[in-house]
């Protein structure tokens, strides 16, 4: 041990060099980390914690459990009860809670919670609560006489589930599952709106990505092969939309595409269209796709351009001189070299498109709405847990894509202009 130590190199003040280097290294590490720390804390507090809150909301709702203590207690004591035919005590507990809800004005809250999983429950609860105070035993008969829906097994499944503050119900609803007599099942196709909208959002984003790629490729190529002076000038045409307010661009597309808009006016003026046969390009999916393509196009052009700029033209010349046609040269030599740019641009555009809100909200009409708009719809209706569950599902999809992006391209290679 001592022998080995004497063989070590030491610094001027006699410390072993390895140790001194390690100390210096870890000090440097600490210093670097300390520089990043304030921002990390800031992002943690203002970004990660809010998202955590949202995730918490998606599995938490006390609207029913808070206002029905008696029934909650009963569910706890009788976990094995028959949902098809709940006993008199269950109805007695229910009536006690309903009467209390009426007095404390909590019926809407409790009914709303059950309504998420069993539609129609709000009116059922309101009717029940109004009568509860004056009700005489046997309560089961009285409640069923008031409305047979009080005997529905799905209602009892829903109330049992809602009596716990923590719940996965919202994810089940967001996955278009439905409570039936025997528990959760796949909903019928007519009401499968959430997964359908997710699917639609992904398809529309894919369409937009493809259109962006088709439009960006020639432009990026032109910018890459032009001399610097000319390409800088043209680059401004790409960057100006990038720097212009999203709302300005959306407004502009409304002016251009609406039925009495500039494009239709021009087509009618040129005699291509009849005045009563104008194209509907706004407030539908067409409007959403056109406006979003315009908004996202620079995000495709810039990564493509930065890759194309460094592809040496000599490769193409070599291919040509070896006898390849221009098409073969493009397909076999040029295109493969642009793949990193295509991947970077496409992923970025797709990720941004999936979460888009403003443009579809303003120009989408009824059929141009995407999943973000549904999240916003639930927020304005104060269905917060539902909005949070949908947002969490969207977040999971985005993070998966982001992870792929990081693995393939690396976030530190993201460039702007």
């Amino acid at each position, binding site marked *: 041990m001592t022998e080995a130590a004497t063989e070590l190199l030491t610094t001027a003040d006699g410390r072993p060099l390895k140790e001194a280097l390690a100390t210096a290294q870890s000090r440097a590490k600490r210093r670097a980390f300390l520089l990043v720390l304030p921002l990390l804390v800031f992002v943690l507090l203002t970004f990660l914690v809010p998202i955590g809150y949202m995730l918490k909301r998606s599995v938490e709702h006390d609207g029913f459990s808070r206002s029905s203590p008696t029934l909650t207690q009963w569910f706890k004591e009788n976990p094995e009860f028959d949902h098809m035919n709940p006993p008199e005590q269950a109805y007695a507990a229910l009536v006690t809670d309903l009467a209390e809800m009426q007095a404390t004005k909590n019926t809407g809250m409790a009914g709303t919670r059950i309504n998420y999983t069993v539609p129609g429950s709000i009116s059922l609860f309101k009717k029940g609560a109004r009568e509860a105070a004056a009700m005489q035993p046997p309560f089961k008969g009285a409640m069923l006489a008031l409305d047979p829906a009080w005997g529905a097994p799905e209602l009892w499944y829903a109330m049992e589930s809602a009596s716990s503050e923590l719940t996965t119900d919202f994810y089940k609803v967001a996955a278009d599952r439905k409570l039936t007599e025997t528990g959760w099942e796949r909903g019928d196709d007519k009401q499968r709106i959430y997964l359908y909208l997710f699917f639609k959002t992904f398809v529309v984003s894919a369409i937009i990505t493809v259109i962006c790629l088709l439009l960006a490729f020639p432009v990026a190529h032109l910018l890459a092969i032009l001399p610097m002076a000319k390409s800088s000038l043209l680059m401004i045409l790409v960057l100006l939309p990038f720097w212009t307010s999203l709302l300005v661009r959306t407004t502009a597309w409304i002016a251009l595409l609406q039925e009495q808009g500039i494009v239709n006016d021009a087509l009618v003026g040129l005699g291509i269209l009849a005045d009563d046969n104008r194209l509907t390009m706004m407030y539908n999916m067409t409007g959403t796709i056109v406006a979003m393509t*315009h908004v996202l196009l620079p995000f495709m052009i810039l990564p493509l351009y930065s890759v194309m700029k460094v592809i040496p033209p000599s490769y193409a010349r070599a291919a040509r001189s070896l006898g390849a046609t221009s098409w073969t040269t493009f397909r076999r030599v040029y295109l493969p070299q642009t793949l990193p740019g295509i991947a970077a641009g496409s992923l970025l555009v797709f990720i941004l498109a999936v979460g888009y809100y403003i443009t579809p909200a303003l120009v989408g009409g009824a059929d141009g709405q995407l999943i973000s708009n549904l999240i916003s719809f639930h927020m304005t209706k104060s269905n917060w847990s539902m909005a949070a569950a949908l947002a969490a599902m969207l977040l999971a999809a985005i993070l998966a894509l982001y992870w792929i992006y990081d693995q393939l391209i690396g976030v530190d290679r993201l460039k702007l202009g």
Partner: protein
Amino acid sequence: MALPTYASPLERVWYYTYLVICTLIFIFLIAPILIVIPLSFNAEPYFTFTEKMLTFDPAGYSLRWYDTLLTLGHPGSDTMRDEAWWSAVWERSTWVQAAKNSFWVGLWATILATFLGTVAALGLSRPEMPYRRLIMAILISPMIVPIIIIAVGMSFFFAQACVPPDSIWSTIFGPFLSEKGCLVNSHLGVIVAHAVLGIPFVIITVTATLSGFDQSLIRAAHSLGANPRTTFFKVVMPLILPGVISGALFAFVTSFDEVVAVLFIAGPDQQTIPRQMFNGIREAISPAILAVATLLVIISVALLTTVELLRRRSERLRGITPH
């Protein structure tokens, strides 16, 4: 670029077709932005060119929509335009209030994002930085996570993020918080939200500038006897300044253009220009929106020019000459 001399006739045709296609795409990119400018001078409340406008009849053009930007929300819009009238414009007009809010929120968000982002970028570009990739991914994520998700999360959290009344915190932050001392419906809330959204841009531009930065310059400065502070301000800062400024401009534009977070976390006292435009577009698209749009286009042209000049200066300083 010219065609190579060996190009076949078919290639010539394709080449010119290609140029036409590119031109069309450039028109697609730029035309919508330019079209709002003439439309904003429409004398009629329409969103399209009137016949008078197309024949360049002066009667088809007017400044009335720019005027409504001053008079909307003005308590005495049709009174004489004296000093009191103008001061009421400054204090009460809806669009002027929105512009003031947008400007101040943008400014503070930019300062916050630029300061924190630059310092962090300095740390991130040191070779010794641990967990670099993971931390980078976290710091860039506000740009990637859909703004609606961020806004939903913030609206939940900011409603609970309150300072206790009569505490030292409420003395310091009180004026920036809502009446109940919470982040929601407060200027500070909007500033913080916008700062988070601007941070990725600052990180990206500053680390990009630093990637071309020669670390031996720092050692040289040290060996010549400069202390870390002098080294930073005399050596590092001048070289990364263009990157910092363009990051700051990105952050400002992000805030200046942001509407979703404002929709979810701001109250009636924090209405910004994009928020007013959002309302305007949904309700009645009067050319007043186009007047605002025109002003915003002018601002973005100015910002873009600044950033371009800075980028060139930065490349010159770092010895990368345009080729």
